[in-house]
């Protein structure tokens, strides 16, 4: 059974690229560009992992993850962050919500390793 990943990012190129990368890891990837769309997909198909951009059109990734975790508390989540964002400043918040963060400038190997680690849990 393939692992389900929900990928939320308003940048279509990043969505497409990450979808290809994660599909090659043997995962089934659904994509959403907004928080509303993401919540609809979660209701239809509960994912095994959530990867969300921080800045979305209708909400921010951290709030969206917190909202999803109310219904799926065990689902692991990754927050994709841009260079403007300094995760160290909200590290405690991320830790409380059991959210891992990955910079958009991280290497692919690092992203893959994090995805595998969280899916293996």
């Amino acid at each position, binding site marked *: 059974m393939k692992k389900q990943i929900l990928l939320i990012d308003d940048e279509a*190129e*990043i969505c497409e*690229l990450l979808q*290809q*990368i994660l599909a*090659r890891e043997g995962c089934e990837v659904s994509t959403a560009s907004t928080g509303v769309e993401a919540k609809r997909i979660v209701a239809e198909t509960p994912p095994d992992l959530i990867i969300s951009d921080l800045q979305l059109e209708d909400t921010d990734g951290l709030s969206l993850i917190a909202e999803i975790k109310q219904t799926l508390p065990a689902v692991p989540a990754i927050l994709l962050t*841009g*260079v*403007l964002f300094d995760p160290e400043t909200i590290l405690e918040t991320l830790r409380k919500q059991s959210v891992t963060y990955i910079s*958009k*400038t*991280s*290497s*692919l190997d690092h*992203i893959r390793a994090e995805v595998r680690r969280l899916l293996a849990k």
Partner: protein
Amino acid sequence: MKDPVEKRIIGLFLVVLAMLSGITVASLRNIQRSAYSIDLVNQSHALISEADAVFSALNAGDAALWSHLLSGDERDQAAARRAYAAAIEHLEVAKALTRPGSPAHDEFLQLDPLVARRGELATEAIKTRKATGAADPGQLSALRGGGLEAIQDCLERVKAREQALVRERDKESYLQAQNTRWIVFTGGAIHVLVLAVLYYLIRNTLAARRLVAETLTAANERLDATVRERTRQLEEANEALVQENLQQRWSNQALDHQLRYHQLILNSIEDMVFVISKVANVVRVNPAVTRRTGFESQELVGGPLQRVLIPAPATPGAETPAKHERILAALKAGHDLLDSPGFLQSKDGQATPVTLNLFPLRDRDKIVGGVLTIKAGQTSAAPPAR
């Protein structure tokens, strides 16, 4: 183009076929000869039989005639007549069985007068017996001789000749049978030999073909293995390329992301920012410069900094320097220049006093230019005289 071995096999089969045809023709001919020979033998036997019958009938006739002559019994006379008639009949049959002009035919022709003479003697004797009531001894004596020995000799010659012919034909039949046997046995032996050669050729051909097939199969398996290995290598190379491509695209995305955000930061600053070269030419400006001066960035980039930023005189009232000496000196020395005065000159020629800060740009310990940030503000220097 047929295989040479295949040609040889077909040739040998043709040889077998020719031999079979030859044997069949020879056998049929011998059978025909044998049938003809049997006919001739039967004819000879028939002739011998008829010759014996002629002599037997004559003897029977003589015996019945003697009885009649001695006893006067009419039944004996009738029997004698029937016997002589039978003798004549057998003689005619014997003549019919022989070819005119043949020695046997001639012999039978010679018998005609002798048999007729016997008949005449018999008739005379019967007449005398009837007339006198007793047999005439002279006639009886004549009957005892009467050419019977000559007839017997003649018949014996015919029989001897025919028996010789029968023996000869028997011998011929035997030789023909032997001949047929030889043909059949020799043909059979040659067939066996040819079939053995054929078997050898076919077996060798099959073995060679099997070897070729095995070699081909082995070569195909090697080729398959090579193709599989090559395919695996290509798949690996392709996978590596795909990974490399994804990595490249992700890196580009990351770079683009960084660039966009750095540009966003730079463009969001309300202070004017100039990137200048080591000789104080403008390399890049942020949007705040174009907003404040009215120059388009392309009007400034590549040109001297003093076009838009006029250096302040060293002392109040002194002449405005032609170059940004302090900036050039700071770039050369590689140190910052903070809160330095100057005048910003807009496109419409209006000069505004500003404070500038210079930070040299280092690329691996080498100064490649500088970043100039300008804040609008008062300066103690007098406005430039133009």
